[in-house]
């Protein structure tokens, strides 16, 4: 298997231990619950913010624990939401009189775990807030699916809410801000290759050279359509045509433009996509307030990219630019 691994079964805990060791004491680690948390939390004057989806999406979510972002993350195994016990134990550890805010990505597995945990914790008089992220326009809302998936847009929800929490905002204020971001963020993804879950050891599916998967999920779920590989220009058109009319984003809007890498695409290609998208948005009268190019929410070593647009106003701009410190950093 093409992986740096000792044992697939201990993969998640081994990399989480690395995250904690790399933090120089800022983060702590509890292997029983795949739990990474800020050593300086909980703080009675701050709502605690926690998350835990499947592993395999790093740096989401365990590497964005830190000041101004998450207070703790308790992921499940690769591509599986966390067991309920992980969530309840994390909640107890991070409990604050101002409450604990769950930021949940919209997948059946994640939702059932976090909603069960919410019921259980509320029954014990914990104060729990709840945000559901669902930015992926590749999935059409319908009465019978659980609806849009939460993908790269999750970063912006955490960034905005995390900044406000750091300033002492109350739970209802955080839920308002979070839902504002969720209401204004949209994503569309395209994959050029599959990925290899460690326990499996082989690619989850195959994309032939010369083909691409349009509307890919971040768990290796096939997307909505297999198409002939396009040029970068054509691909950006596909992504913008899915994202822009959906909100819709309109001439005069200011946006954050994220080109998220799925893990196996070089950052040079991401910047190439960025440049094309930036110019096409300018042609539509949509102005980029700030760029986000790199890996935010991956699918192991999948080659591919998500394009995410977030419409911003003064409140969100201020929160997005507020300082934050997480494990995932350059310097």
């Amino acid at each position, binding site marked *: 298997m093409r992986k740096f691994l000792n044992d697939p079964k201990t993969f998640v805990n081994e990399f989480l231990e690395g995250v904690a060791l790399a933090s120089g004491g800022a983060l702590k680690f509890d292997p029983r619950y795949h739990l990474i948390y800020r050593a300086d939390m909980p703080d009675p004057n701050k709502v605690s913010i926690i998350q835990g989806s499947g592993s395999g999406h790093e740096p989401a979510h365990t590497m964005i624990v830190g000041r101004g972002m998450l207070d703790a993350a308790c992921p499940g195994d690769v591509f599986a*939401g966390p067991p*309920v016990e992980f969530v309840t134990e994390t909640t107890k550890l991070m409990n604050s009189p101002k409450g604990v805010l769950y930021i949940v990505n919209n997948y059946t597995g994640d939702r059932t775990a976090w909603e069960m945990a919410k019921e259980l914790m509320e029954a014990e008089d914990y104060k729990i807030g709840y945000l559901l992220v669902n930015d992926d326009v590749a999935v059409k809302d319908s009465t019978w699916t659980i609806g849009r998936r939460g993908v790269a847009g999750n970063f912006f929800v955490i960034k905005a809410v995390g900044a406000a929490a750091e300033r002492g905002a109350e739970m209802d204020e955080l839920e308002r801000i979070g839902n504002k971001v969720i209401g204004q963020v949209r994503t569309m993804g395209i994959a050029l290759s599959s990925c290899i879950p460690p326990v499996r050891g082989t690619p989850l599916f195959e994309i032939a050279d010369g083909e691409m998967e349009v509307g890919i999920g971040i*768990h290796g779920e096939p997307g909505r359509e297999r198409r002939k590989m396009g040029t970068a220009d054509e691909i950006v058109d596909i992504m913008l045509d899915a994202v822009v009319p959906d909100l819709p984003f309109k001439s005069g809007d200011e946006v954050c433009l994220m080109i998220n890498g799925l893990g196996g695409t070089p950052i040079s290609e991401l910047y190439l996509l960025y440049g094309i998208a930036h110019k096409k948005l300018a042609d539509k009268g949509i102005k980029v307030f700030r760029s986000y190019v790199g890996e935010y929410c991956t699918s192991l070593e999948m080659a591919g990219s998500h394009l995410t647009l977030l419409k911003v106003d003064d409140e969100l701009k201020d929160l997005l630019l507020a300082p934050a410190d997480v494990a995932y950093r350059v310097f």
Partner: protein
Amino acid sequence: MAQASIDDVDLVIKTMAKTIVDNAEYFAHLDSIVGDGDFGYSLRNGFEVVLADYDTFDKSSVGAILKKIGLVISGKVGGVSGPIWGTAFLRAGITAGDRTELAPGDVIAMLRAAISGIMARGGASLGEKTLLDALVPATDALEASISDPAMQGDHAVAALQRAADVATKAAEETKSMLAMRGRAAYTGERSIGSVDAGATAVGVILQAIASAWREKYGEGVPA
């Protein structure tokens, strides 16, 4: 039909857990075709603990055993399967209560409670390509066998086998269904043509239980 004892519950649980652990890769493979390939592994995380700790569980009643299993599964299993299988065991356990012997009607009531728990937790109905599409027809078959004099052999060996066969066939029939739940649902039309991993697992587990039961109680009266 005789009553089932705590001993019988032990057999069923251990057989089920062992079957899940042994078939983890197979189930995960099925889930990888249009899902995300974690199903068997997730389930194994929980049932490995069940197997390892089973002897330490409180065995004072069927309800105590099943509720404990429900807690372990929903505590240890991630993805959609933890809450769904955990809820199923919890509800069955609550229905069994402090019984130490189960009449056939009790077993049916427990299965029905598990099914409605799954439906409540995951929001799925029949025909949406989930494990319900094997579990519900198997339960119907078991219930029918109970009131069928031709199936009244010792210890319901034939009735159980019949239920397992119905599950296996029903699982096979999920092939033509459109997935409407779980991650497989994202693939839309492309989910048609392959069996549902959860339904197949139900079939495989019931077959293993039926075999173990036959080994313990011998051939039943043929139908």
